[in-house]
């Protein structure tokens, strides 16, 4: 089994940034935080469509969970109001807990899926929840690693990626 060609640290050191793609917000459900699952054409050759869509759909699911209006969120709101919001000095809100889960998920996705393909996801929280920034790196490593990088994407790309 071929070891991972790019680790996250290697990527940052050895590769140079080629371009960035920004996945915009999807406001069709209202003002809740959701991102568009439309596949950006710049990623066509770098990653499989299903992997990308799965990442965005999982992120959307997390945000929906954070902003869910239901019994537990009302309880939290009422309890906070009753304590004149002093309770937030010692307690974390549900939203913050989910945001921590999201950043762990993004780091995990970066290590497992995106960095081997020369891509890097940025947590939307660092961009004001406006966009998911995907940095595309050009590989300056040895030709061996770059060809294995492209061959991995082409061998896995039989599913949905157009012929490149």
């Amino acid at each position: 089994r071929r070891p991972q060609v790019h680790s996250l640290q290697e990527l940052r050191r050895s590769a140079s940034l080629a371009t960035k793609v920004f996945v915009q917000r999807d406001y069709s459900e209202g003002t809740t935080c959701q991102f568009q699952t439309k596949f950006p054409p710049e990623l066509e050759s770098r990653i499989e469509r299903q992997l990308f869509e799965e990442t965005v759909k999982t992120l959307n699911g997390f945000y929906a969970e954070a902003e869910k209006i239901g019994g537990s969120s009302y309880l939290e709101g009422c309890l906070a109001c009753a304590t004149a919001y002093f309770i937030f000095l010692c307690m974390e809100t549900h939203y913050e807990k989910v945001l921590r889960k999201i950043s762990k998920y993004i780091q995990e996705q970066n290590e497992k899926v995106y960095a081997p393909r020369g891509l890097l996801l940025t947590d939307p929280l660092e961009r004001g929840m406006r966009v998911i920034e995907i940095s595309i790196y050009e590989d300056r490593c040895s030709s061996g690693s770059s060809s294995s990088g492209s061959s991995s994407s082409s061998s896995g790309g039989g599913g949905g990626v157009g012929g490149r």
Partner: protein
Amino acid sequence: MSVMVARKKVVRKWEKLPGRNTFCCDGRIMMARQKGIFYLTLFLILGTCALFFAFECRYLAVQLSPAIPVFAAVLFLFAMATLLRTSFSDPGVIPRALPDEAAFIEMEIEATNGTVPQGQRPPPRIKNFQINNQIVKLKYCYTCKIFRPPRASHCSICDNCVERFDHHCPWVGNCVGKRNYRYFYLFILSLSLLTIYIFTFNIVYVALSEFGCRDGCNPRLFPVLNCVLTVLEVLICFFTLWSVVGLTGFHTFLVALNQTTNEDIKGSWTGKNRVQNPYSHGNIVKNCCEVLCGPLPPSVLDRRGILQQEESAAQEETCTRGPAAQEPSAAQGPFSTVIFLQVPVPSPSNTEMPEEKQLPAGELPIPSQDTGQAEH
């Protein structure tokens, strides 16, 4: 200048944030630049309550019930807590787009509209979205270089885009937006109750001490001073009642319909040619629950994050209470200024600059400031 010694100084992100906000306590507190009226609010509340506790309560606690000052104290503490929370918290400011993102959006806009020949006015930058079967337009903010989310608006006083922008309130010294609207509502509600409470018990006090003096009641010390102070309190409460209670009623109406002051003033959802409010659940209880008890998103500004920089001694020391945008950051300041100066004036129907100066009932008009310009 002084000796150039490169030393590592911890610079937090709030020191480099654009916009016209003031930061205190090393970034923990965030307010608008003009705080004079906020101090007046504090003075009025603290002063009136101090007088009430010092004079009337002592009499009423003995004559009627000790529960009276206790309840007043609870109301007072709640009102102060919600006031400070409204004033000091981030209303939901949307950080400005970084240069890469702004360039990407510009490219997208050009791709959809086509490049405009020199000298011609570009078409207005608007994107249409469909929310719950209604078409909602997203406007492009020239200052922040983003397409504003629905219900967001650019506050010309604080020079920030704020999510679910309600209005800029000089009495609390901050914008009222998504993150602090519930605190603002609870503040005006508790202040209304406190005002009514103090007003009522002042009347009771006057009535009791003038007409109902039973055997053994203590004669008032300093009767003239007492009289003057009571009248003063009654006057303050009377004027506060009319404005604050009215405002509370107005905001209760807005909460029940899930609207913002901004939308109400612009008439976004009224009139037969306009779309209906797509954010309302149609049910008053549900709307109230969502606005007041819904999940609270944390601030995305990251004011206390550390900027990884090595500062030399020659760089100006940013003081902790200073306004944030005196030295625009190298990446954003000059860039946004240059772009702003080159953008032709948008057509009047789409102008985004002076529209945020609104005067909801009860708020003082503010001298208009230069809108949308980055600080030099």
